């Protein structure tokens, strides 16, 4: 029984594909849909700039989440929207644990080689550490 679905959303094309999938799943299972955006500070930060990046990133994701909120306004589903700060995979797993999420849906998109070396793919980390089932939705550009 899938009662609560968590969607990791960043506004990218793959995240939009993941949104469509999560929405369909939530309708089918009559589940709650939680949409989480993660504003991310620089990997190696510094004074002042880190706070500025967090503020900018937070504002950006609040706009991004606002778009999803508007899109889901006419849905009868129970929805919840959050913007948090940190590493995306860590925050998704943390949120899933503390909210009793039954299923996580994330998009998958290419990252730079450096990011892969440094932290690995977000989707891969979520799969490794999630307390529940995970669906990774791939976006293939036309």
């Amino acid at each position, binding site marked *: 029984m899938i009662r609560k679905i968590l969607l990791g959303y960043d506004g990218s094309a793959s995240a939009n594909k993941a949104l469509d999938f999560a929405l369909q799943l939530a309708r089918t299972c009559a589940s709650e849909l939680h949409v989480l955006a993660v504003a991310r500070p620089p990997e190696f930060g*510094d004074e*002042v700039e880190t706070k500025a990046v967090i503020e900018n990133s937070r504002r950006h994701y609040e706009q991004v989440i606002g778009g999803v909120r508007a899109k889901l306004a006419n849905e009868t589903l129970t929805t919840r929207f959050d913007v948090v700060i940190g590493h995306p995979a860590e925050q998704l797993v943390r949120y899933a644990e503390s909210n009793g999420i039954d299923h996580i849906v994330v998009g998958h998109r290419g990252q*730079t080689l450096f990011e892969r070396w440094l932290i690995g793919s977000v989707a891969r980390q979520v799969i490794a550490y999630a307390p529940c089932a995970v669906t990774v939705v791939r976006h293939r550009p036309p």
Partner: protein
Amino acid sequence: MTEIWTQAALWLALALIATLAAIWLRIATALSEIVVGTIAQLIIGAALGSALLAGDASWLKFLAGAGAILLTFLAGAELDPVVFRQQWKRATLIGLVSFAAPFLGCAAIALWGLGWTPQASWLAGLAMSTTSVAVVYAVMLEFGLNTTEYGKVVLAACFVTDLATVIGLGVIFAPFTIKTLIFLGVGAVAFVVLPWLTPRFFRRYGNRPSELEAKFLMLCLFGLGALATWADSEAVLPAYLIGMVLAGTVGKNHALIRRLRTLTFGLLTPFYFIRAGSLVSLPALVAAPAAFVILLATKMVTKIAGVYPVTRAMGSPRQEAAYTTLLMSTGLTFGTISALFGLSHQIITQAQYSALVAAVIGSAVVPTLIANAFFLPRHLLGAAEQDSSRVPDTPAEEPARRTSS
């Protein structure tokens, strides 16, 4: 003027390259600018002569110095004065431990281990004592600890650590003369008057396209900076203090802070950090890398030895205490400022400066890598295993870190 515009264009091209690299690599722009400055000096200096970058030109020194002053002011203005007043005793204790352990440890290693002069050793201790408040702030947000008493104390403590560093920089190397007394007297008056005067002045004449606020703040910063250097002290000392005393008023004006950040990051700090990088001698660093490694290791060990027991004593879980403590070992801005102060005042040699800046860069990278490799996200699994029966269906904890729901 053609020569100046050409040099300015070259430096801004380097700044642009550094910014793009920072975006691609998801690292702080300051870090990228230092590295780009070092590499550019090596390549351009070898190919076309070191005069082309002209890091000692007076106009460039002014832009770089103004960048350091404004950046320090903005760092001080991030203080939360209400929290600091509430938690100042514990924050001061942790902050001073966080300062003193690496300061004394690195100074001792430099003096007895590396054979540096006493003055150079004190400078090394100062450069390695810093903590990046912003990095710890980001960690607190990640853990949702920014609204807890523990998080507030640790954040306030980081300001105390950096304050101790800038006071050390302004006091240790300055001879105590009548000039020092005049500087301290005028500074004390300014720090009392400014929090009263500034908000009233801004309310009466501010919010106009003429940017009166920026002019007024820069007048105060440059004026007290001039007084500090006249007294053989350091201009970033009054800048940080002005930032702290205005944090409750100017610091809350987000629009003004954003405009000041634009000026600082867009024009001034690239000159500061690229210049700091261009003064690093890679050949000297490669010839004697031990100093860099030893200083970095000493900073991390002493910081952890000093801060970790205190955070544990305050009831922080082991994993989070370790993560927080590791990230308190980071510190790029004030470390670079201290090292450049030492070089420009001939307290340290270029080889010592190169080792110090490399250690400072290492302190911005290595603790974060270790913290992420060993504590992210594995600590969550540990927490989940220990607490697997905990409230799976209740609303999310740590609501303060959420911005919408």
